[in-house]
């Protein structure tokens, strides 16, 4: 009751509530960013951010730690890449096809894995994604270790040539915003509330009459589909899909991005992805290139020991504690 009154008064005091203002500013920044930063770097960041957001939908809001999300990222990439090379469809249809393929794979994975919880769930997803990895390693159409090379970016709607980096950037931004919008909407829907209820107390959700497995399965499929969308877009950006995306390292990296940014926060995975991509880019050229995994490991340990809520989580917590009227850090 108290929080309700407080947020109501906060809403009255500000003509444009701060979250909206913040979102508008972020959107403006995203639109202008390629003027300052190399667009391919931004596109890589957006793809990984969408991937992390999709992952966070499961880990942060349902409490399921999947250790096999690389399978969805790579499936999106390979399916889209294969269709772009061999059938000459337009990129938006290519991305949709990749997303659909990942959703289907997510349904299969989900059917097999949501019956288990905790470490068993994580292990089942890891095992399944390793199956997928070795399939892509051996299947002739993926090119194995060479990767699938020469994926054309194509013409958006048959009109706009995406080989121009700037055009491609706005396409990727649009894909990201759609994916992010779906996640945001999911979290703030009655469905999302039930997911949170399952996370907080699963037996209680069961006793209230919810078919918990169905809800988990649906969350799994949405998460897999969006991870596939990220992979499909990434394959178009780099005109290449490789085994790196299918390797279990990638499944680990997305956990790191999510924890670093703030598990269970809306923007956390985006921030986490930004930090990781920035670090990888900063150190890849210099003398510290060989130590990049050590640096990432160190950051991970520090994050887990010192700020468990992640960057965004800690920020929200701080604002909520000291400036309750700001509207930050309200419980989701």
């Amino acid at each position, binding site marked *: 009751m108290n929080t309700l009154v407080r947020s109501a008064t906060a809403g009255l005091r500000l003509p444009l509530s701060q979250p909206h203002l913040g979102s508008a500013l972020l959107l403006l920044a995203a639109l202008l960013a390629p003027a300052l930063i190399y667009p391919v770097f931004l596109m890589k960041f957006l793809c990984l951010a969408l991937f992390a957001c999709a992952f966070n939908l499961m880990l942060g809001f349902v409490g399921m730690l999947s250790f096999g999300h690389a399978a969805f990222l790579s499936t999106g990439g390979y399916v889209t890449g294969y269709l772009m090379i061999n059938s000459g469809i337009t990129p938006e249809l290519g991305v949709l096809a990749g997303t659909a393929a990942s959703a289907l794979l997510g349904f299969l994975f989900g059917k097999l894995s949501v019956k288990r919880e905790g470490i068993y769930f994580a292990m089942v997803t890891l095992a399944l994604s390793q199956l997928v990895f070795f399939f892509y390693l051996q299947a002739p159409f993926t090119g194995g270790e060479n990767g699938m090379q020469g994926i054309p970016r194509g013409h958006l709607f048959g009109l706009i040539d995406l080989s121009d980096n700037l055009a491609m950037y706005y396409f990727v931004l649009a894909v990201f915003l759609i994916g992010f919008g779906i996640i945001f909407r999911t979290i703030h829907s009655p469905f999302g509330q039930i997911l949170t209820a399952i996370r907080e107390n699963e037996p209680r959700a069961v006793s209230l009459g919810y078919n918990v497995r169905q809800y988990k399965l649906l969350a799994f499929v949405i998460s897999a589909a969006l991870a596939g969308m990220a992979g499909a877009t990434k394959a178009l950006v780099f005109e*290449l899909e490789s085994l790196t995306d299918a390797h279990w390292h990638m499944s680990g990296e997305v956990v790191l991005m999510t924890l670093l940014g703030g598990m269970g926060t809306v923007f956390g995975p985006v921030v986490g992805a930004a930090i990781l991509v920035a670090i990888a880019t900063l150190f890849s050229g210099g003398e510290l290139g060989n130590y990049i995994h050590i640096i990432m490991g160190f950051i991970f340990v520090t994050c887990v020991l010192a700020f468990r809520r992640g960057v965004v989580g800690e920020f929200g917590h701080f604002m909520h504690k000291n400036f309750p009227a700001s509207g930050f850090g309200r419980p989701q």
Partner: protein
Amino acid sequence: MNDRISRTLSSVVLGSALGLAALSAPASQASLSDDRVRLGVLADMSGPYGDLCGKHCVEAVNMAVEDFGGQVLGQPIDVISADDQNKPDLGSAKAREWIESQGVDAINGLVASSVVGAVAQVANSAEKPILISGAGSNTFTTKTCSPFNAHWTYDVVALARGTVSPLVKSGKKKWFFITADYAFGHALENVATGIIESNGGTVVGSAKAPLGTTDYSSFVLQAISSGADAVALANAGKDFVNSLKGASEFGLSQQATMVGLLVFASDTRSIDADIIGNMRLTTGFYWDRDEATRVWSKRFMERTDGAVPTMAHAGAYSSTLHYLKAVAATGTDDGATVMKHMKANAPDDMFARHATLRADGRMAYDMYQVRVKTAAERSNRNDLYEIENVIPGDQAYAAMIPECDFK
């Protein structure tokens, strides 16, 4: 034409809508783009191929730049480098970034064929020359040839012809392959198989090992049970070293002749002379061949804490020098113009002897059949090879295919 219209259209739409029109305006073309020549060296810096090219390839390119005088057409030459970790996605992303945002004019190094394939896609469409100094797959001058590929140091055809055919002719008829499981290994095995079969031999089996494998026991055991009298190692760098050591430990080398298809001097030096002694192999460079190579190699060793120069290092030096000469002669760093000049004028330095850069981008020059010296024959740790035979470039390399005749 349609392409251009839609590209212009998209630029206009996006530019005007967002007030970013300035971004899409193309940079004006000077004789040298951004008033300098910038060379990128992309290689595996710390992984299994780190020793055969890696950071010493950067040093070799730097030597070429210094020998050229450090500048061309009165403008500076600078060299940047990156580690591709043998991953095609990292390599192509780096090449794209270099070309699109850092003004790189040509890319050197380029070791793992899988990475080179991905980088070539990016560089070819941007019309930037790539000087392939470390990779072996022959696809860059055949199936995926391009006017912007210059394949410098060696290729799988030269290796297989130089190493395999004398052995088959001398009576080794049953072959087994331990192959690196990616573009280069597959290509090498294919070409070598063709040569074995055309000389009356047979291939009794093949095991594909992932790049960077450290434990070769299962592959070696397969080779032992195959009963082959020659076992070809279609791999390179640390993979070659590990597989040969494995073969020695399991007694395979007593049962069959071990054949290293791609051996770099750095690998030879790092293996016990008792294991590798008397192996016959093909190489494009040996530091102790004559006075010119000795002088160059001495300088190289001084700069690299005594590392023995491999053919990839020498190739990176030679290709850089030839590229810079072409830039100076044509007065531009435009990829197409420079490549034309490089092909019209034969490279000639301590590395490239009796050389031509063919229209398909293959640099054909004298290759050497060598025998690895045994421990007793070696006078110092860099005394590795005895040159037994010189193969002229036109015999070492496959003939040009008509589709790749880029004048």
